[in-house]
C-alpha cells in the first residue's frame, strides 16, 4: 500500500448533467470530489460516460447543468476562467494527438512558449528533462509519424506535463496501443502517481487501478454506481451491476 497524504479538494463536481444533441444522456446528476495528490481510476462499460466526464472537466464538452469547480475557479461561461482551468489540466488522449508537423521537441516546447511564455532555452531544458523522464530523450528531433504508438503516447504525456499541470487526465491512454507497449506507458503513469500527481484515469487496466489508485469509480449510464478504494472495490463490491461488470472483465 502506498502511504501518501491526500490534500484538500481540488475538483468539485456537483450534480452535473450532460445530454448530447442526439439525445444520449452521457452524465446524469454526476457528483464527486477529487483531492490533491489523489489518483482516481474511472472504469465502466463503453458508453457509460467515462470519457465525457473527463472531457467536461477541462471544458472540451459543455455541461448542461450542475457545477464544476477547479481549485476555486468555477468552470462557467467566462472565457478567462475556462482558459485558466485548461492550462492547469493536462490531458492525454487515446489517439495521442501529437502535432504531426512538429518534431518531438517542438511538440513539447510549443505550449510552454505560447501559453507559459517561457524562453526557448528554459522550454528546451524542461522538455529534455521530461523526455528523459519518459525515456525517449534519443528521439528529440524525430517526427511523431516515425515513432511507435507507445513512444508517441509517452511524448504526449511529456507534452502535457510540460505545462506543469495541477491535474492530469488520462482518457484511455493505453487502449490504442499494442499489448507490448502498454507496459511502458503504464510505467510512466505509475511513476507520476507515486510522485503525488493528481490523476484521473479512464482505463481498462485493472492492474494499474489495483496498484496505484486511491479511489475507484465504477460508472454506468452516466451515473456513479459505486466508488471505493481499490482493495474494497475489487475484493468486495457491493452493487450487483459492479459484480457483473467485474466478472465479465476479470
Amino acid at each position: 500500500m502506498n502511504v501518501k497524504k491526500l490534500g484538500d479538494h481540488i475538483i468539485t463536481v456537483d450534480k452535473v448533467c450532460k445530454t448530447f444533441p442526439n439525445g444520449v444522456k452521457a452524465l446524469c446528476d454526476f457528483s464527486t470530489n477529487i483531492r490533491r495528490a489523489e489518483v482516481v481510476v474511472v472504469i465502466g462499460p463503453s458508453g457509460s460516460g467515462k470519457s465525457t466526464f473527463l472531457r467536461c472537466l477541462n471544458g472540451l464538452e459543455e455541461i448542461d447543468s450542475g457545477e464544476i469547480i477547479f481549485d476555486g475557479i468555477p468552470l462557467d461561461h467566462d472565457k478567462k476562467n475556462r482558459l485558466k482551468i485548461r492550462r492547469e489540466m493536462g490531458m492525454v488522449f487515446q489517439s495521442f494527438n501529437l502535432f504531426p508537423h512538429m518534431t518531438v521537441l517542438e511538440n513539447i516546447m510549443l505550449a510552454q512558449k505560447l501559453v507559459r511564455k517561457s524562453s526557448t532555452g528554459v522550454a528546451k531544458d524542461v522538455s529534455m528533462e521530461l523526455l528523459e523522464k519518459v525515456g525517449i530523450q534519443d528521439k528529440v528531433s524525430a517526427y511523431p509519424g516515425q515513432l511507435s504508438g507507445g513512444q508517441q503516447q509517452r511524448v504526449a504525456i511529456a507534452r502535457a506535463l510540460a505545462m506543469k499541470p495541477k491535474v492530469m487526465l488520462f482518457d484511455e491512454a493505453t487502449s490504442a496501443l499494442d499489448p507490448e507497449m502498454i507496459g511502458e506507458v503504464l510505467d510512466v503513469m505509475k511513476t507520476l502517481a507515486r510522485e503525488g500527481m493528481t490523476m484521473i484515469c479512464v482505463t481498462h487496466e485493472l492492474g494499474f487501478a489495483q496498484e496505484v489508485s486511491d479511489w475507484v469509480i465504477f460508472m454506468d449510464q452516466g451515473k456513479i454506481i459505486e466508488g471505493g478504494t481499490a482493495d474494497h472495490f475489487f475484493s468486495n463490491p457491493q452493487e450487483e451491476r459492479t459484480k457483473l461488470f467485474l466478472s465479465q472483465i476479470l
Partner: protein
Amino acid sequence: MKKKRYFTPTDLMLSVMFLLFCLFIAYRIKVGLNYNWAWDSIFQFLFRFDNESNSWVSGLIMTGFYTTIRLSIWGILFATVFGVVSGIARTSSIPLFRWLATTYVETMRNLPPLVIIFIAYFFVGDQLLYPLGIDDWAETLSPTGQNIITVLFAKPSQLTSFLAALMTLAIFEGAYITEIVRAGIESIDRGQWEASHSLGLTRYQQMRHIILPQTFQRIMPPLAGQFISLIKDSSIVSVISIQELCFQGIEIMTGTLHTIEIWIVVTLLYLTLTLPCSLVVERLENSMSRGVH
C-alpha cells in the same frame, strides 16, 4: 508501384488512327481552307528590331504575355489572401463571419465570370478606383517610379483598369480558394483541436500554430490546380480591354488575318506558363501519396 505498360495491337491501331486524323486536319487546312501560311510575318509580333533605339524590343504578343504574367502573379497572391481569410471565416464560430464568407463564395461561384468581370469593372473600376486618382498619382511620379510601376503592374495611364481587372480576378478566384481552404481546415483531425485546446492555446494560437500549417501542407495540390485555373481565366479580362495575351491575339488577328499562326503562338505561350505548374502539382501529389507525414 508502377504498372508495367505494354504496347498492344489496340494501341498501335489507335495511334495510327490518330496520326491519320492529324494528317487529315493538316490536309484540310492546306487544301480545303486554302490558307496562306505566313509564319515569317508573325515573328515581328514577338520581337522586333527598333530602328530608333537600335535594339530589339518586345512585340505586341510578348507585351501581352508579360501582362498575363503580371496578372497571374499578383492574382495568385491576392486570391490566396482573400481565399485564406474567407476560408477561415467560413469555419469561424462567429455566425456573422460565416454568413459573409458564404455569401461571397456563393455569389462568385454561381455567376458566370464574364458577368462578374463587367459588374466589377464598371463598379469597382469606375466608382471606387477612378475617384482615388491612381492614374494621376502614378503620372506625377519620377521616371524611375513610373518605370517601377510599369514593370510591376502596368503603364501609369492603364494602371487603374489593370488594378480593377486584377482585383476582379483575385476576388473571383478567391472564392474557389476559400472552399479549398475550408475543406482543408475541416479535414484536420478533431484530436488536433482537442489536444491544443487542453494545452491551453487560444483559438488564434490553435489556428496559427496547429491547424493552418497542417492545412497548407494538405491543400497544396488543389491550391496549385486553382492557380493554373487563374492563369487561364486571366484571359477573360481581355473583354475589358486589358492588353494581355488573349487581347493582343485578337487585335493582331483582326489586323493581319493570320488567325491560325497567332493562336498557335498564343497557345504555346499559355502552355509555357501552365505546364510547369501542372508538373509541380503532379510532384506534390506524388509526394503526398507517398505519405510525407
